[in-house]
């Protein structure tokens, strides 16, 4: 049981990395990764919202939608629940835990329309995970997002000081750099199956 949960966690972080293998959350990956501290703050907020969204949508899906044969409403219900949840969390944090709000709050509105959060919730349902499996897969997806963001922020800080040919400057070189970081993650293929063997 524990083995299975950890293999879900590691798969989400390394082999099926949300950003570099599944292409979810590309906008923040390319847009917010210029500085290391914003990259870390944004990823921390994503992990928090992913875990919370999964914890809230799992019972809604299981006890409300599936029970009443309303699975086709999943997309519309999930996106609304996530949007409302993010707003609610923002208000609660602002009022009761200002320290946490100052650290994460500014990233919260950005996450509502982030496809990674909706993506992880839908993927958990598609895979038929139970509650514990869903939570591990969400946290893993968030940690994988953080790993990719932090690594890429480092790469981009290096790129700043490089002499890049004019036609590749800006977005093209950023994408090619992302491609190389993604190649490095291909190296993890097969690691999860063998690590617990």
């Amino acid at each position, binding site marked *: 049981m524990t083995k299975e949960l950890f293999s879900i966690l590691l798969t989400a972080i390394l082999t099926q990395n949300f950003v570099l293998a599944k*292409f979810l959350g590309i*906008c923040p990956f390319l847009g917010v990764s210029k500085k290391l501290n914003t990259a870390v703050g944004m990823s921390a907020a994503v992990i928090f919202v992913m875990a919370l969204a999964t914890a809230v949508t799992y019972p809604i899906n299981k006890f409300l939608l599936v029970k009443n044969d309303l699975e086709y409403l999943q997309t*519309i219900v999930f996106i609304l629940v996530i949007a409302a949840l993010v707003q609610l969390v923002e208000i609660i944090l602002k009022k009761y835990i200002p320290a946490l709000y100052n650290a994460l709050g500014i990233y919260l509105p950005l996450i509502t*329309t982030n496809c990674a959060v909706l*993506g992880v919730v839908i993927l958990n349902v598609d895979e038929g995970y139970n509650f514990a499996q869903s939570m591990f897969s969400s946290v893993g997806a968030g940690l994988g997002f953080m790993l990719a963001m932090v690594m890429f922020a480092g790469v981009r800080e290096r790129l700043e000081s490089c002499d890049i040919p004019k036609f590749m400057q*800006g977005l093209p*070189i950023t994408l*090619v750099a992302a491609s190389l970081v993604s*190649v490095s993650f*291909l190296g993890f293929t097969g690691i999860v199956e063998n690590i617990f063997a």
Partner: protein
Amino acid sequence: MAKLTKEFSKGIIAENPVLRLVLGTCPTLATTTSVESAIGMGLAASIVLVCSNIVISALRKVIPDKVRIPAYIVVIASFVTIVQMAVKAFLPSLDEQLGVYLPLIVVNCIILGRAEAFAGKNPVLASAVDGLGMGVGFTAALFLMGAVREIFGAGTFLGTGVPFLESNPMLIFILPPGGFFVYGILMAAVNRLAEKKGKPRAELRGCEACPMAQSCAIRKTDKEAAE
């Protein structure tokens, strides 16, 4: 009429959502492993875009300004659900290829972006034409990416073999790194063409085009830092 033609054609070249505005990057990278899934994704998103543009434009005087974003999301999500059901029923193989990216059309920033930037302010016909133009531009860009990746990565084009490459496909092109690489090279080529025509280079304007831009604090702090 001339105005409508302009609304239509701007989305295809001058304001191509993928290659000029750099929007909808997730589906662009994820669903272009073959021409078939690229076109499927493009068409599905275009249908949602046109329909949601029409409905949002028709309701633009009814929807209160304060809750417009949630209202737009509900309209878009409804059409995504309809498209999802239709694809599941009539094209199950496409449904399998697109997987989670089909429901994720909801959060495609091209659609919410057009709702916020155009459909919420313009009459129905113009909004429909704007959506159609943007949809064609999105599909064309996806087709281009899909064609390059399938020809080099699998040695086929729409399933038929391409001489020489068929026996020596470069698998990396259909793996995730190939997606980033092809998109990067395509952007470099498009930037080069734009510069020759005296137009600005495409930059990542994800934030400015984002419908949340006004309430987003990252942009506020960036602006304050700039001032």
